[in-house]
């Protein structure tokens, strides 16, 4: 039980802090949420700076502890999020690094790290959400290419992506988990139609994608044909691992801001509200320590996050929703209904947390079956 960082890690932290202090003030203003080309340019520009300064591969080249420090410090300094680089850095990149051929790694990894190329994710389908393995988008082999038809949904950054990590069915006769392949699809291929979807928060954060006889070279398949489900599980465990570190740091900052706001407005005298804030302080304190616990565990197990990520995501996604429900009470009746307030918008977007990347119900199945060994399936 050691919570102290090594000299080397502290040195990494100090250098990073100094670098952030120098580079952040010169950063341009954040583009508006609807400005997709602007957002792409902003996010990839930031990734390029990280890359040039030697931090480009911190999400997968560095040790889990170094990554934790990186995410903690960049969040504390108010640096941009991974944004448009999310799928490349946290899904497609790690998958290609783990499962791709030398040629594939050489083709795709550096452009992700240097912010040149943006990836999106084509996993979910209208009829394959929580039951992802039920996906129907078909890929038919035609010479040295796959010809793909079907539709995908919840695809973030589809409008501005260069590549899509795509799950397709390559064997319809096999059991559903065994007929899936993982492909890298160029987003400029003929036959792709992207239709943005508006979220309940009013913004267009993701899209529907229709594929009509899209040709993708067979060399773009990562992993063996029909082995895509296993390849995908590698990706998903990354998403549920350290992906939320920065957000826990951010939530703790918001909690402090809520307390300051409540003290100023006089709502702090409301013992019930104060208690809610205190319980959230305990919650996020525990979640931060759980993050360090999971990271230490990953460090020993060789860097691949385990099902501990599901435990964390379950608790965190609900805590985040509670945080913004309390924010609404801190703002008071009218403030809670005013979407001009950042916390009101954050409250709306927090509603996705118990759904995206595996609903809480699916996470509970994973925890119960894979950690506790309870029977699979059932009603």
């Amino acid at each position, binding site marked *: 039980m050691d919570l102290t960082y090594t000299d080397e890690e502290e040195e990494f932290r100090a250098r990073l802090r100094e670098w952030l202090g120098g580079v952040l003030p010169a950063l341009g203003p954040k583009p508006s949420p609807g400005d997709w080309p602007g957002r792409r340019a902003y996010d990839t520009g930031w990734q390029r700076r990280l890359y040039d300064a030697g931090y480009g591969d911190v999400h997968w080249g560095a040790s889990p502890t170094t990554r934790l420090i990186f995410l903690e410090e960049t969040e504390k300094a108010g640096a941009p999020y991974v944004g448009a680089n999310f799928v490349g850095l946290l899904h497609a990149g790690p998958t290609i690094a783990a499962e791709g051929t030398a040629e594939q790694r050489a083709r795709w990894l550096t452009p992700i790290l240097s912010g040149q190329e943006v990836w999106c994710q084509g996993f979910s389908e209208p009829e394959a959400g929580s039951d992802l393995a039920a996906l129907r988008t078909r890929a038919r082999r035609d010479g040295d290419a796959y010809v793909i038809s079907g539709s995908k949904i919840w695809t973030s950054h589809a409008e501005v992506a260069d590549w899509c990590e795509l799950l397709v069915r390559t064997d319809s006769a096999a059991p559903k988990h065994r007929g899936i392949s993982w492909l890298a699809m160029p987003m400029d291929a003929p036959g792709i139609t992207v239709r943005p979807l508006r979220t309940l928060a009013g913004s267009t954060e993701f899209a529907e994608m229709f594929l009509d006889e899209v040709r993708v070279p067979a060399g773009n398949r990562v992993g063996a044909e029909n082995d895509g489900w296993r390849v995908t599980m590698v990706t998903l465990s990354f998403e549920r691992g350290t992906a939320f570190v920065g957000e826990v740091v951010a939530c703790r900052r918001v909690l402090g801001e809520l307390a300051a706001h409540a003290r100023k407005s006089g709502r702090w005298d409301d013992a019930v509200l104060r208690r809610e804030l205190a*319980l959230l302080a*305990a919650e996020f304190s525990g979640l931060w*320590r759980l993050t360090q*616990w999971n990271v230490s565990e990953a460090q020993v197990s060789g860097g691949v996050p385990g099902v501990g990520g599901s435990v964390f995501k379950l608790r965190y996604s609900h805590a985040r929703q509670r945080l913004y429900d309390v924010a609404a009470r801190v703002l008071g009746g009218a403030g809670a209904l005013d979407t001009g307030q950042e916390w009101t918008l954050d409250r709306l977007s927090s509603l996705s947390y118990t759904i995206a990347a595996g609903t809480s119900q699916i996470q509970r199945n994973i925890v119960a079956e894979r950690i506790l*060994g309870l029977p699979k399936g059932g009603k």
Partner: protein
Amino acid sequence: MHFQLTEEQRALRDGTRELLAGRFGRDALRAAVDAPRLDRALWRELGSAGLFALCLPEAAGGVGLGLPEAVVVFEEVGRALVPGPLVATFLAAGEVPGAASGEAVVTAPYGGLLPWRDAADVVRGDAAGAEPLASVDPLTPLYRLPGAGPTPWRATLLYAAEQLGSAGRTLEMAVQHARDREQFGQPVGGFQAVKHLCAEMLVRVEVARAAVYAAAVTRDPVEVAAAELLADEAAVQGARDCLQVHGGMGFTWEADVHLHLKRAWVRAELGGSARDAEETLAASL
């Protein structure tokens, strides 16, 4: 940073679990419930195993370990539902003669309650005006004090560690029952309604574990308060969910579930008031 149990801490945990399983297993627990008394022989054995002297310097005849190790040991004590004023005796080691070795049984008033007064050799602190009450926990006789006195932070932390151990145990009991008990032609643990209760129990245990261990390392009052609240929640709600998973059997005297729930309620009071912990956390924001 390596925020995991060290090899030595793992060995300490396993050794303590083994000792308690042998010396205070289920039969001993049920015998104690039938005839509640403080088992002096067990107390001395725990003393000679070094439980009370764990954090005393070696020069003073102690084991010379730190608070994280004490937390690991008290987690096991909570898991096994060992009765007696273990926390007060542990904190009296080196200060009250005989406490470290287990020769003396020491109690102290915490959170407005005085446990095991009649069995104790020494009562530390002001226990004036103590009145007996009919304790809900068959294995913790209690006296009530006129004022709700404070609980020292080390005691708060050790009770939190006991809560953590109890929460881990009720999770195991629930999972075991969910695997064994069949209804509608399948183990009830195959039903998502039951499965999800168990998953949430595990989540609470894991968050509480991280908080309790971290508080033992940092000794930060705010983290101790967080650990207290999270561990109380894990223990009390865990015992209740375990009871629910056990169905009708969970409501019986014969099942051990109620012993965990009642002790968890008692520890939650002895470990200090939730209100104080909440105010400590609120003030830190």
